[in-house]
């Protein structure tokens, strides 16, 4: 928590209310600051709003109120195109499951974020090679994700998230259905990659082991909701 470090994410009074038959206050007004290169693990009870927070951060869910300043820009005010741009260049996402396109091969999955960001072909090839080597997934490059085991899929997901050298990686329970050994490997890989590329890592996890690979642990509680 050194103050020297540059702040990359500032969340100010973030509120999100799901409007359905029953209104659910998922985020009651959150304030949070994360430094560049920091590895943060967010924990909390189930249903407390962790995933909601991460979705807001990824720009795939528009919060009801509040600000999310990423590199001093409020992404809440972004329009569709700016959000797409933001997802393309600034953040990388790793989810527990369903985050690999089943209709693309592993290689295509990794290439896609770079192609859409108009990275040059040679650079793409080099980067794929690099990622694949570190993550040890060369064998599966030309297969569809559904033919891979959970751990393998998750390693590919990390490669996809990191492909574009994002400044922030968001991981929502990346080890949800993996065994202990595999979970550790995933955390290890994620945090190492982030150190290597100097990427900010925001992980949501129930797993106490995750804390070992983080600089800071944030626990969400429901206290504030009463104030609203």
């Amino acid at each position: 928590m050194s103050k020297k470090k540059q702040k990359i994410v500032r969340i100010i009074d973030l509120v999100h209310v799901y409007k359905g038959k029953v209104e659910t206050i998922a985020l009651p007004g959150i304030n949070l600051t994360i430094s560049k290169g920091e590895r943060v693990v967010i924990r909390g009870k189930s249903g407390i709003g962790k995933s909601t927070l991460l979705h807001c951060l990824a720009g795939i869910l528009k919060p009801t109120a509040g600000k999310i300043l990423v590199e001093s820009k409020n992404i809440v005010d972004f329009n569709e195109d700016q959000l797409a741009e933001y997802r393309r260049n600034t953040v990388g996402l790793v989810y527990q499951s369903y985050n690999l396109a089943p209709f693309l091969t592993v290689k295509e999955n990794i290439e896609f974020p770079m192609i859409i960001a108009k990275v040059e072909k040679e650079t793409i090839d080099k980067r794929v090679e690099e990622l694949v080597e570190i993550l040890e997934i060369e064998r599966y490059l030309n297969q569809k994700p559904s033919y891979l085991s959970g751990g393998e899929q998750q390693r590919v997901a990390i490669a996809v998230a990191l492909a574009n050298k994002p400044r922030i990686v968001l991981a929502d329970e990346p080890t949800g259905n993996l065994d202990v050994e595999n979970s550790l490997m995933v955390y290890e890989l994620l945090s190492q990659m982030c150190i290597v590329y100097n990427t900010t890592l925001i992980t949501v996890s129930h797993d106490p082991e995750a804390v070992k690979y983080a600089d800071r642990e944030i626990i969400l509680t429901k206290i504030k909701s009463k104030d609203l």
Partner: protein
Amino acid sequence: MKLMKIIVKGQKKAIIIEYTVILLLLIITSFSFSFYLSEYHDEWSNLVLSSEDPDFEVQIEQNFSCYLSNNALYSNHFNNYNYQNIVILPNILANIKIKNESIQVFNLVLINSQINDNSNYSLTYNEVIVQGDNLVNVKINDVSVDWNFPAVNGNITTVFIANETYFEPVFSPTTYLQAKQGLYGINVIITEAFFFKVVRDTGSSVLENVAAHEITIVNSFFRMNKTVYFNLLPNLLKENYGEWTKELRGNYFQFYDIFPLNSEIQITISFNDIFNVSMTKMFQKMNSLLVRTLFIVIVISSVFLYSAFAYLKQNQKEFGKIMQILNSRGGNYSSISKRLISLHIWNTTICILVSLLANFVFITIMKINDWSYSQLLISIVHIVAFIPIIAIQINSISEIGLRPIFKEEKKKLSYSKSEILSIIIQIVSVMLGLLAITVFWTINRTSLQSENLSSSSIWYISVSFCLFILLLFIIPRFLMHPIERLFRRLLEFFTPIHLYLTKALVSAFKSKKKLLTLSFFLLFFSSLLTSSYTTLRNHQSQFYESMELADISIITEASTITEIIPICSRDNCIVSYLDSTFTDKGYINVIYIEDPIKFYENAYFPDELFNEFSNRDVFNLLNLSSNNVITSSSLANSVGYKIGENISIPRTNTNLNVEYNIKELIDFAVFLPYFFPQEFSEWFLLKYDKNESNSTKFQYSIVSIMDKNNNINSLISYLDENNLWYSIISDDYYEYPNETLVAALQLPVLLMNIAIPFMLIIIFIDLQRACNNNLRFLKLRGMKNSLSRLTFTSWLFIFIFSISFTSLIIAIFGLNTIVYITNTKYGLPVQLSLTGLNYLIQVVALIFSIFVPLIASLIPKIFRKKPQVLNPILEGEVKNE
């Protein structure tokens, strides 16, 4: 074997259900058709077998001496026909006394051996039957009949006195006799054999002295042996009847032409009306019954199939899991699928055998097993039903989803082995069915009434039908690939991620394969129905319009034409002449049109009906020269001529010698059967050369009047008053043969055009959901929302464009084949006609494809699967979490 046991055990429930469904389907379908058949059979046998009326009736009025001199030749000439002959001799030849009272007014009736043998009381030589209304109290001894001339060996014995009803079965055809009976009251009946024996013994001059110029009426009744046609199509019977009467008529003219002496002879010919009125009525009745049967069969079987197989699919999915386990424990994939397929084929075979058996029992009970059509139809029903059954089985087998579960990605074929096998089975079964039908058709061309179809055109029809089936079932499978390539090419210009986008869309569409096939077939069927409907409607209006050519045609003796023309005023009628004549190739009708150009002006001709010439060309040709004889190629072929050949037409000149005129045959339209009656269906048209008029004598003239109301009544009353012979040959208002079909199509076409767009939009929304689900992954990595929406819309548009127009083209291709077949039978050829209505469904589908996102958002939330759509990107996520 163990494996088979496991499969049978696991599939038991499915097999029983499948078995029941297939069996019920087969039985419902074939039984409904059997009911139809038995109905048809009853009507048909009533019409054909139990008809008492003679089929051809000739009444010849002549003087007695003519009769005497012709008779021997006459009976020789018509020997082969087995006719019944009733002759009313001049009663001056005999005397009859009842209770010593001489009767002046009576009929002297000769019957030939045909009638004599068939009556209950066969007469032998010199026996007579006296028949009358009021002879109840008269005894045989009270009656004496004598010749009114010195008969050498001809004493007459009265053997029987009959009351009026006794001879009814024998005389019933003679309306003439019945009329006279009312007048004269008493008939004296003797046999021809007896009479001519007396004539021989006494010498004919003795008789002629008594009654040379008295009128003698000969009624000959011919019956065609229709039982041999019982197993033929009704139209063939009709055609054969036409041939038969033509031959007879020819024989009559030939016979009486030999005796120019007999110009005083008056011949009246009448035909049995079962070939017009009753048959048409029966066809109408049966057609509407057929439409109803078809409708019921289609509705019942489709509803039934759908629900049953929804269940079956579920069951098969569960079985699939078991198989997967079996497979993973070392069961060989191919051996499992082989056994599965053989199990189902075995199942189908048993079903078909059982159903065939049931059907033959059924038709035996219905007593139509001897009718070849019942067997034929049931076999066809089974062959036709076999195809959807196979399709359903393959569907349910593929539902089991056997896939080798190897870790390494196999070079994945687009089709699994069982699928390829099933496609081959489908294609082979279709081919075999077609081959069988074609061979059957070619062999039985005569009994199926398609002699004018050459073998090559039968094969053309079969091959194009086969092609049509193949296109219909193959194209939807392979349509995706070219669309995908085209789409990718297009996208390449706009975005670097074209490959990924296409993959996302293609995989989404592939997961909805069944929906896509369904929408293809929906579009296809609505195209087919709609274009059949518009085509038939067009044909219907052409039919009625060409019937208005002449409301009524009257055939009269040629000599009376000069008297008739002033009455109906030349401007309003078309005059033509008819000669039935023998040529080197046989018997034909030649029709001479007086003024072809006028004929043309009054006629309605549907476009493009002429094969080689335009209609005006044809009539110009006719008008310019009398060297051409016009006919249609099929009519010419049926008499043994070819177009372009010379035809020599015999004419009798003033010296009563026969001359031959050589004319060239040219091809011509087919509309004329509407103008000229069916009886003269083998016609040749010639221009009537006015200069020739004095030297030629026609047999008949035909006056066709355009306006029924104006002249016809005065004309007919004139003819009646002056005792001129005439016959109305085409005042029938023919109903369009496909009237019931057109009426039956109307509602389905309307419903389809309303219902299918709704179904399409539901399908489109489902497709959109599947696509969004895939596109979400790309959006998650930074693809713009607008790009995603645009690509989906354009992809759907291109896709729908391709399938809707492919289906339209295939539908038109199929319809064209049907039209080709029908055109060989109709006089007025059916022309494909497409109107705006035909493109309606395609256009609607395209519009819908553009506006799916909008329409989807308009649909009330309750109908949507998810209560809240947070963000398009999350859509899939929410569903999955």
